[in-house]
């Protein structure tokens, strides 16, 4: 049974449709990341699940029951807001205790509950402070603690790392998966940071253009993006792209990259004549001095963490990136090489529909 499901959920404000016909189901204990840019309605979606926003149509199911007529206080949900939304006139510990008190827990239980989550989130030393006296990181942890305090079956986290500094975000990205697993709750986690999504998710639901364009495990999203949009959203540096047409010569298939022909797996031959976007992940680009492959020249070399990113330009003028491990032999600026593309990181997308073509 699904712990949480949304059934053809739609929301519009007047003529403006935020999203339409969203379907998603999450099992008990599953972490589903809802990924999408700003203004795609991720926050509105979470609010609807929490019951503080009305859907235009469709409904939310909690533990298999239609929750349309269930008030927010009876949904058994914990939620952390992007802006923290702490109660400013209560201390951190009173904030965290609020859901426990609402459940009419005995005073001893409230106390032990608060100190349990406070220790878990390492804020036990600031429990007496008011939200005003907390740093952003502490506010964020307090908000998270409040969401976790009553051990809800469903946890909604609205971009909780958005407003904290880079160092803390990195730490929390490491800590959160363990914390969330420990809670055992079904988690819907909203973010616009693809690394966060990859690090946390059992499944990622990519929200774009008012619908889920792909719902899949992080590896699948990365290695087999359903559409061009998804391919572009995931990856840093982002995927290389050039518009071209599929051609066939005998049994093999090629694409023309600004005047130069590049061989692609023969299985793409079925799409002969189709206008496509030829996309290749920077890490699937390998460079060598050899007799075949795309002619190119190194334009710039930029170290990026444990990898080196090279900006390359083909003879025809296509600029693309290659990402090599720092341990590899790194060509220098101005060097002329041949580039070849590993089939695993190379995709063709139909230019009109944006959908990936199976090769």
């Amino acid at each position: 049974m699904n712990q949480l499901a949304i059934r053809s959920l739609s929301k519009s404000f007047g003529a403006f449709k935020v999203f339409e016909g969203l379907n998603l189901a999450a099992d008990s204990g599953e972490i589903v990341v809802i990924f999408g840019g700003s203004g795609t309605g991720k926050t509105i979606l979470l609010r609807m699940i929490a019951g503080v926003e009305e859907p235009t149509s469709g409904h939310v199911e909690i533990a298999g029951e239609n929750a349309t007529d269930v008030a927010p206080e009876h949904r058994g949900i914990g939620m952390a807001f992007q802006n923290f939304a702490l109660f400013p006139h209560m201390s951190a510990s009173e904030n965290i205790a609020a859901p426990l008190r609402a459940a009419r827990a005995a005073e001893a239980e409230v106390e032990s509950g608060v100190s349990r989550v406070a220790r878990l989130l390492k804020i036990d030393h600031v429990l007496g402070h008011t939200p005003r006296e907390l740093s952003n990181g502490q506010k964020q942890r307090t908000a998270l603690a409040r969401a976790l305090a009553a051990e809800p079956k469903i946890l909604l986290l609205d971009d909780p790392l958005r407003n904290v500094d880079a160092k803390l975000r990195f730490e929390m990205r490491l800590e959160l998966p363990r914390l969330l697993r420990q809670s055992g709750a079904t988690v819907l986690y909203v973010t616009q940071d693809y690394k966060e999504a990859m690090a946390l998710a059992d499944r990622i639901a990519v929200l774009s253009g008012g619908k889920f364009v792909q719902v899949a495990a992080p590896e699948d999203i990365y290695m087999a993006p359903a559409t061009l949009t998804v391919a572009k959203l995931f990856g840093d540096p982002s995927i290389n792209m050039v518009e071209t047409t599929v051609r066939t010569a005998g049994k093999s298939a090629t694409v023309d990259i600004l005047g130069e022909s590049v061989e692609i797996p023969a299985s793409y031959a079925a799409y002969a004549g189709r206008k496509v976007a030829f996309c290749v992940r920077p890490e699937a680009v390998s460079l060598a001095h050899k007799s075949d492959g795309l002619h190119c020249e190194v334009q710039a070399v930029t170290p990026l963490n444990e990898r080196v990113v090279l900006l390359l330009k083909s003879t025809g003028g296509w600029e693309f990136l290659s990402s090599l491990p720092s341990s590899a032999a790194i060509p220098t600026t101005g060097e002329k090489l041949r580039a070849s593309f590993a089939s695993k990181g190379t995709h063709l997308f139909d230019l009109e529909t944006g959908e990936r073509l199976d090769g």
Partner: protein
Amino acid sequence: MDHTSPLEKLIRAALLAIVIIFFMFPIAWIVLMSFQTNESILRIPPSLIFTPTIENYVALITGEMRTAAGSLKLDFMRNLWNSVLLSSASVAVSLLLGVPAAYAFARFKFRLGEDIAFTLLSFRFAPPLLVLLPLSLYFKTLGLTNTYIGLIWVYQLICLPLILWIVRGYFEDLSPDIEHAHRIAGYNWFQTFWKIAIPLALPGIAAAGLLAFIFAWNNFVFALVLASADKQPVTVGALAFVTASGIQYGQIAAAIIFSIIPTFVLAMFAQRYLVEGLSLGAVKG
């Protein structure tokens, strides 16, 4: 570090002194008047040197006014009590009705919501006299003339729009997410209103209440037309000092001092609630 030069300090002090003298002069003058007899107030040329007397205050408290023409009965203490009663009861009723209404207008979209809110505000546009004429006829029919209830009701015209609009603004400034978070934490609508919205809007509610109290306190024309002597507040009661044998300036001054005290005390008390910023730091800006 202090970057102000001595000259700047001097100019600042001088300007402050001018402002303070400008605003405090009438009050100081009234305080002085209240300790003088009518004769010493009216002497020409006026002088700051006089023998202080508490005669005016005694007259107000005992309710006996001695004029050149003889002794007159005075109901000033009764008027003062009426003012306190009418103003506080009106503000209390207004808060009771206005605060929930303000919350509704701030948080919920409903049919004609804006129009209703504006209509309530428009009560303050109309000259009171325009309303009074028909109102006095209704009051006669309903038997509300010269009753506290009737006056408190009419005073809602003064207090309610003020409280509604000021408090509404405060509610609108609160992040709805804080209230949503409280609902999701497991509290129903009313608990959230009571535990979150009211405490966070308290500075606004206090400010609106204080303003409404002052407006109600200073009202003159409603009570003049709709009430007779035993229900009239100080503003109307002060008319009694204009007697056949002249205006009793000293007693007027003493009466003013008396009638300032309640609003003054209230303002001092409410001051700590008027300090804004309670909700700062809760929501990331």
